[in-house]
């Protein structure tokens, strides 16, 4: 049964069309699990380390503490200076006020003295007594001296006032500057105090951002690993092989669950979800004939397709046009040459002949005229006037005839000349022009032919690739049908057979599951039987025995099941030996322990003798292996499990 069942699982794996290798998947999963653990640890460590203390720039805080102290001191000093200046200012204001009064007094004095001097002058103008006048003069001189002195005092006091005013302005300005300076320093102090009150300002933001980026990367990597792990776990080869291992460990229900999972996946593949075997061939036949027809039709289209570039048609049309043009020009040239030939030969000969005739007629007429003249000369003396007149009339007629013939000769000569000119022009202009045009057209044809070659080489790769992909798709559809044909049964049928084989074992597993006590609500025992302890045990045993009797008969698997045509490479496994002796029982128990890892099977494909092998000296040759030789047990356990 083991063999049959494992073959059936292999069939299901084959149906899944997965190309994965179980050993590789297992190794990768182990690696990924290790990597996940490492990444989780790294993330945890990083998260733990990402506290504000880590990013605190202690030196910056110390600097700020120092700045705070120095600012406080500076502000104190500035405030003292301010107070001092303020006192000076107040003093200067008082000084200014005093000086202002002094100036005012001096000015009043000058006014008074000026008024007095004016009065004295008025008085003196009315005095006649010299003594009195002398007295007034003396007084006037004194007052004028006083006035001069007063004026000087005014000037000096005003100067002093201006000096004091300037000093006052300067003091005010300095005080203002000092006030601003104090305010600036106070602002700095306030900002420093604010920084010191929180740690925000001393956090190394770049370092923190770097850690946050690293955390993000690690989380992404972890996510990628988990995705891959999930992919591996969902790989049909993985599911199938786990099912096998579960089966070999006698975990039949779990094994069957895994196989159900595998079948669910297989049913998503084309033609795998057909419910019954009888339908399979019908559906496949219809699908195959349709797919083959589609593939063949498309293949023939692809075969006849040139995949030329999109410009090819234009280039070809141009080529066609140039060829037609060349043909036309050649035709024209031939016609021109024919015409030229005709002109040079037939027409020229004809005109020459006509000219010859006319010339001979002319000569004859000239002779006739000479004869007429000679006769008229002879007859003029002997003949009657009437006869002479008749002769003269005949001569005139002959002369007229000669004139006509001569005119005709000139006309012929002109025509011959025209013909020759025309022939020359035709030859030099039209023929050479046509020949040049033909040569140019030929050159164009050569150029365009090159372009056709280039264009045909630069095939429309996209169209080609797209058609290839479509053709592959159609071929794949046919391959899917062919692949499906390999299996005589549907995945569901294989699963049903497995279920049938495992049914009894699964039932047994279910029975052997520990029975939960009948507890209603939370912790309330529904029924409590008051029996002696010994009886209770006996009854329990009895119940178990009764349950054991009810185990259904183990059904033998259907050995006549139709196997797929393609048998998996994996070898068969011998059924487990029946345990009947104490000695065997010990081994059997050991073998079914859950922690015992499943053995891996490998087919031996080649055996060769050791003669050719060269063992290093330090390694013990096979012949030298003795009983007491040490065999590293850990090396065998931990050896490379390939």
């Amino acid at each position, binding site marked *: 049964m083991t*063999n049959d069942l494992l073959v059936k699982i292999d069939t299901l794996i084959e149906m899944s069309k997965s190309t994965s290798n179980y*050993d590789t998947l297992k190794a990768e999963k182990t690696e990924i699990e290790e990597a996940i653990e490492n990444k989780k640890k790294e993330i945890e460590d990083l998260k733990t380390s990402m506290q504000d203390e880590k990013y605190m720039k202690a030196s910056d805080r110390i600097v700020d503490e120092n700045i705070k102290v120095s600012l406080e001191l500076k502000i104190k000093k500035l405030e003292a200076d301010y107070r001092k200046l303020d006192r000076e200012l107040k003093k200067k204001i008082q000084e200014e006020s005093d000086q202002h009064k002094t100036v005012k007094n001096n000015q009043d004095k000058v006014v008074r003295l000026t008024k007095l001097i004016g009065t004295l002058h008025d008085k003196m103008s009315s005095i006649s007594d010299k003594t009195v006048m002398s007295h007034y003069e003396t007084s006037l001189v004194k007052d004028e001296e006083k006035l001069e002195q007063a004026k000087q005092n005014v000037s000096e006091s005003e100067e002093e006032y201006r000096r004091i005013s300037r000093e006052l302005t300067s003091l005010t300005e300095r005080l203002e500057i000092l006030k601003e300076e104090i305010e600036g320093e106070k602002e700095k102090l306030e900002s420093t105090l604010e920084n010191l009150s929180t740690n925000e300002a001393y956090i190394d933001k770049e370092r923190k951002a770097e850690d946050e980026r690293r955390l993000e990367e690690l989380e992404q990597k972890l996510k990628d690993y988990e995705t891959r792990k999930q992919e591996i776990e969902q790989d049909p080869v993985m599911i199938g092989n786990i099912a096998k291992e579960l089966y070999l460990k006698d975990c039949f229900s779990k094994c069957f669950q895994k196989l159900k999972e595998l079948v669910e996946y297989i049913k998503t593949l084309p033609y795998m979800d057909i419910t019954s075997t009888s339908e399979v061939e019908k559906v496949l036949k219809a699908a195959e004939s349709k797919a083959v027809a589609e593939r063949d039709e498309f293949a023939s289209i692809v075969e006849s397709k040139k995949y030329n570039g999109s410009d090819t048609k234009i280039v070809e049309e141009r080529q066609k046009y140039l060829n037609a043009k060349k043909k036309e020009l050649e035709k024209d040239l031939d016609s021109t040459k024919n015409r030229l030939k005709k002109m040079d030969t037939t027409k020229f000969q004809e005109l020459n002949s006509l000219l010859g005739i006319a010339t001979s007629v002319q000569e004859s007429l000239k002779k006739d005229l000479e004869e007429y003249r000679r006769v008229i000369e002879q007859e003029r003396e002997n003949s009657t006037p009437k006869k002479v007149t008749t002769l003269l009339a005949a001569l005139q007629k002959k002369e007229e005839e000669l004139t006509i013939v001569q005119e005709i000769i000139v006309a012929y000569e002109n025509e011959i000349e025209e013909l020759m000119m025309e022939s020359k022009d035709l030859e030099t202009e039209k023929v050479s022009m046509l020949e040049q045009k033909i040569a140019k057209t030929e050159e164009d044809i050569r150029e365009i032919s090159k372009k056709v070659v280039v264009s045909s080489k630069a095939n429309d790769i996209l169209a080609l690739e797209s058609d290839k992909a479509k053709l592959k798709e159609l071929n794949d559809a046919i391959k899917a049908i062919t692949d499906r044909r390999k299996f005589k049964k549907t995945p569901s049928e294989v699963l049903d057979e497995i279920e049938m084989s495992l049914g009894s074992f699964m039932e047994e597993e279910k029975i052997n599951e520990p029975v939960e006590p009948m507890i209603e609500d939370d912790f309330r025992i529904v029924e409590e039987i008051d029996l002696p302890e010994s009886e209770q045990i006996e009854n329990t045993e009895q119940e178990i025995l009764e349950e054991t009797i009810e185990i259904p008969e183990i059904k033998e698997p259907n050995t006549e099941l139709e196997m797929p045509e393609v048998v998996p*490479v994996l*070898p*068969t*496994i*011998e059924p487990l030996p029946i345990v009947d002796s104490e000695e*065997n029982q010990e*081994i059997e128990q*050991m*073998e079914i322990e859950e922690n*015992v*890892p*499943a*053995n*891996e*099977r*490998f*087919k*031996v*494909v*080649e*055996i*060769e*003798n*050791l003669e*050719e*092998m*060269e*063992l*290093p000296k330090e*390694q013990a040759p*096979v*012949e030298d*292996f003795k009983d007491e030789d040490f*065999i*590293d*047990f850990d*090396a*065998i*356990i931990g*050896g*490379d*499990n*390939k």
Partner: protein
Amino acid sequence: MNLKTNTIITLENKHKYVLLNETEYKEKKYFLAMEVTENKEVIPSNIAIFEKAVAENETYVEKINDPKLIEILTEQF
């Protein structure tokens, strides 16, 4: 194919092992094997115990992973 000591076996996964010693336990044949490279150089760290199995005229080896059985077999080797 008959497995015996002093031979190199090639498994279907392309790994090669030299069979160093053999023993029988519970009517089954076991081999002590050491992996060798393509150039037939031994890899001392890769030691394994194989159980011989024959099915459908094909020879298989089953790598023993059970520590208890390994202990018993190493004693016999």
